């Protein structure tokens, strides 16, 4: 009977796949490592060593750093680092990002990564608000730390150090509108329905834009500003890609995005007139991205060497181009046209750790309650 043979076949498949899954899934680190072993053995022989590399560095990061469809620095950084240091670099990209490690620490499960790359200020606040014992170790001595631009350092406790930064700004289609210069003129009737931004609870750009309004109008005034903005038909969509694709589809001429937008547009021969940048009140909200070593890491010294490596001028320049962000150091080697296309705000603004801790959740939650009240 067809039915019997189908069920038998399905049954056989499931037992095989269960065995397969159990093999793959024991732990993510193990599986990542397993799949990387072949690769590293190959590179080990090519460098002509007698044995394999001495040490392994496991770095947790967000997926776009290693796996975005355009360019991403991950593969390049891995290759350069492994060539120079006698070590193996393994990227780990848990989809829950920092939450993954908080969850593991909370559950008392071993964290197999040595460090995390891509930490921002509110991640750090979340870590500290949810873990009593802490997740990261003191950063200690890292070469090149002194080259970091003043004002980007965001951890008063000296655990995280920045490796790049983005400035959140308006991106507008210059063939359809001219973006206003100030927050107040964004409320003008001619810009009704012109702006798309993102949900501050789930999107870094949306959060930065909300925090910028808190910076501008204060914790007591930003909700009034948003009320006016809502009256002027601002759109808050879910994610950066929701917003950016709606903007690309001409649903509205302005979107909250990064001031490096033209770098990417230029790489794809897009019309730069349609990718104009505007800093409201001549300010851009800075969103520095940092790195930190996990408390209890297997190879903390190698992790610090890696951090120093990332802060070198040539590496900083390459990460900036491939990650479409600004370098964190003054000394980065950037290509000639980078400064023309990637615009830095006359006045960068941002909230530090101490200002966000204990406040950021409340600001977002109050905003949500006002904006979505039905």
């Amino acid at each position, binding site marked *: 009977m067809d*039915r019997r043979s*189908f*069920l038998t076949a*399905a049954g056989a*498949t*499931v037992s095989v*796949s*269960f065995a*397969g*899954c*159990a093999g*793959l*899934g*024991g*732990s*993510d680190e193990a*599986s*990542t490592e397993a*799949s*990387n072993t072949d*690769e590293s053995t190959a590179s080990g022989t090519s460098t002509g060593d007698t044995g394999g590399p001495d040490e392994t560095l496991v770095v947790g990061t967000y997926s776009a750093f*290693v*796996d*975005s*469809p*355009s360019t991403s620095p*991950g*593969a390049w950084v*891995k290759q350069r680092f492994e060539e120079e240091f006698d070590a193996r670099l*393994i990227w780990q*990209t*848990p*989809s*829950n990002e920092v*939450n993954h490690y908080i969850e593991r620490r909370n*559950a008392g*499960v071993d964290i197999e990564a040595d460090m995390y790359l891509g930490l921002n200020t509110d991640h750090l606040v*979340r870590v500290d608000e*949810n873990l009593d014992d802490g997740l990261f170790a003191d950063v200690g001595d890292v070469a090149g730390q002194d080259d970091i631009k003043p004002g980007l350092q965001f951890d008063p406790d000296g655990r995280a150090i920045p490796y790049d930064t983005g400035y959140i700004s308006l991106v507008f289609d210059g063939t359809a509108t001219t973006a206003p210069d100030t927050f107040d003129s964004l409320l003008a009737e001619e810009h009704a329905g012109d702006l798309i931004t993102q*949900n501050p*609870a*789930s999107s870094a750009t949306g959060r930065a834009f909300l925090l910028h309004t808190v910076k501008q109008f204060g914790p007591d005034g930003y909700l009034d500003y948003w009320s006016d903005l809502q009256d002027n038909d601002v759109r*808050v*969509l*879910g994610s950066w890609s*929701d917003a*950016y*694709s*709606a903007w*690309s*589809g001409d*649903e509205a001429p302005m979107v909250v995005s990064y001031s490096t937008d033209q770098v990417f*547009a230029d790489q*794809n021969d897009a019309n730069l007139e349609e990718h104009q940048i505007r800093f409201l009140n001549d300010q851009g909200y800075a969103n520095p991205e940092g790195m930190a070593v996990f408390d209890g890491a297997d190879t903390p010294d190698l992790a610090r060497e890696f951090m120093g490596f990332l802060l070198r001028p040539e590496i900083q320049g390459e990460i900036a181009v491939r990650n479409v962000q600004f370098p964190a150091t003054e000394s980065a080697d950037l290509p000639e046209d980078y400064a023309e296309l990637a615009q830095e705000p006359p006045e960068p603004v941002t909230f530090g750790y101490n200002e966000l801790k204990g406040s950021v959740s409340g600001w977002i939650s109050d905003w*949500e*309650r006002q*904006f*979505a*009240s*039905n």
Partner: protein
Amino acid sequence: MARDLDGGADDSDSDDSEKATEAASSPSRKRGRIVRDTIERWGLVGLAVATIGLLLGIFYYPVATVFIDSVLVDGRWTGRVFVSILQDPFYFGEPGRLLAGEPVGAVIESVLSPDRRLGVIGFTAYQAALSTVASVALGLPAAYLLARYEFPGRRTLRSLTILPFVLPSIMVGVGFVATFGRNGTLNAVLGALGLGEVKLLFTLEAVVIAHAFYNAPLVARVTTAAWESVDASAVETARSLGASPFRAFRDVVAPQLYPSVLMGAALTFVFTFSTFPIVLALGGFQLATVEVFVYRLIRDLEYAEAAALALIELGISLGLLYAYLQYEARHTVQSRGIRPLPRRPLRPPSLSVRELLPRMGLAVYALVALAVFVAPIASMIVASFSGPEGLTLANYQFLIDRQTTGASFQVQPWDAVRNSLLFGVASLAVALPMGVVVAVLTTRDYRGRKLVDAVAMAPLAVSGIVVGLGLLRGLVFGVEVGGSHFAVGGGLAIVAAHAVAGYPFVVRTVAPGLESIDHTLVESARALGAPRARALLDIELPLVWPAVIAGAAFTFAISIGEFSATIVLASGTNQFTMPIAIERFIGRRLGPATAMGVVLLVVTSASFLLIDRLGGDEVGF
């Protein structure tokens, strides 16, 4: 129901007659039969115990680990979190104020006032109700067309109706912007016809249409199956007794369709009640639903409030499902129907008004279906072949490059396809027996079985992220039992999550079929000595086989399309599925993601055609 009670009584009778038959046969044959009988008799019990154990292990225990957070705060049991949500007008609208102890009169006054607040929960229910109405309105004509007309490609179309169900919301968002946006296809067509422009995006209407895109196929599919199982002779009898075609439809056909239509509606409501990515992509945050807040609270690790909200969400959905199950129990039509209604040719046999009118209606419907279902999918396909300089294969080249030269830590397209199929087949292999066993258990007769049924349906109403988080904490991180540590790998946990999400569909498609089987058939088999398990395998399942296949298709579809639990559980690129690959391939340009979306479309279309072919030639109970 009297029939069920009789059936129960007959069960013990047939056991007696079984023994009598056994006593008459020779001792050695008797021993052999006793062994086989024992296996077959206890087989079903064993499967039932295994199913219940599995459900406890991969659903109730893990999900409970999350929900416990809402009542156990800082080591103390408390109802505080629930109370504060229930009293909060932000969540519960004006009734929340009533629970907060405000005077009844004042609350009633504000409910009647024009600026009353629905609250997030009220609004979520409101949009779910609208979405349900739209889905039923769009699904029924499709069921009518598929069940009552014959035309080339009907079976293929029928198989593919499930396709919208699996499309990731990201892709649907892309397709909808391209179709209904300011510069979209719809406005281009309206402009060409000299009609005004419509502004649909970022409105509740856009969200409702997108929900109909997802759920109308569900309504269509279950209703088609019911319509095809209507017995032609009953209609013929009614007609021969002088009933008009309309009267025959109203009195004979329609009552057999109501349970399916309502089931489609109930499921649509439950799904759209716990929706969120479509709302945020096409509507905007001002239309935020409960699930948006569940997600955000979980992301911020505020589990107490998140779990409480998710439980309230679950309570509402389960209440509705329970009400439906009560209705279903009262309205199952027993049928021996083996001869389905004959299908009419789509090309009208004559030019009479009676032949032309319904076909003109279908033509109008076809235009609507073209706009709602075909255009968004077509837009997505077109986008995958488009680049800055027009037509290009660059997006597919990207997929090939990523496959051939991508690093091991990057998502590879083929691996995603393979994982999706593997997880799909594996979860099918778990969900299908589970679903059939639960269907059998819930069609037995005992007090409170509808409650058991509703409890078994709970996975439909628990959000994917709660299931994912529960499995992560409960199984992947492991549990200490008697000093040993038990942990389950991420891949297994993904299969568990998919199977748990899918098996209720097997139950809901198979149970009504089992219930409507003429019980004398089973009783005769048992009187002739067949144990319960054999009667199920040889008599009941073949009779409801199309329903089993329909449930299998849904289970597979859910596995392919599942995102939120998978993303929580997948612990490396070697466990990423097609929807996750699509999400990873999104950048400033959507090309690579849409190309991966087309791969998903092709792979799943082929799978559904295959699954439906397993259903045998003609469908009908």
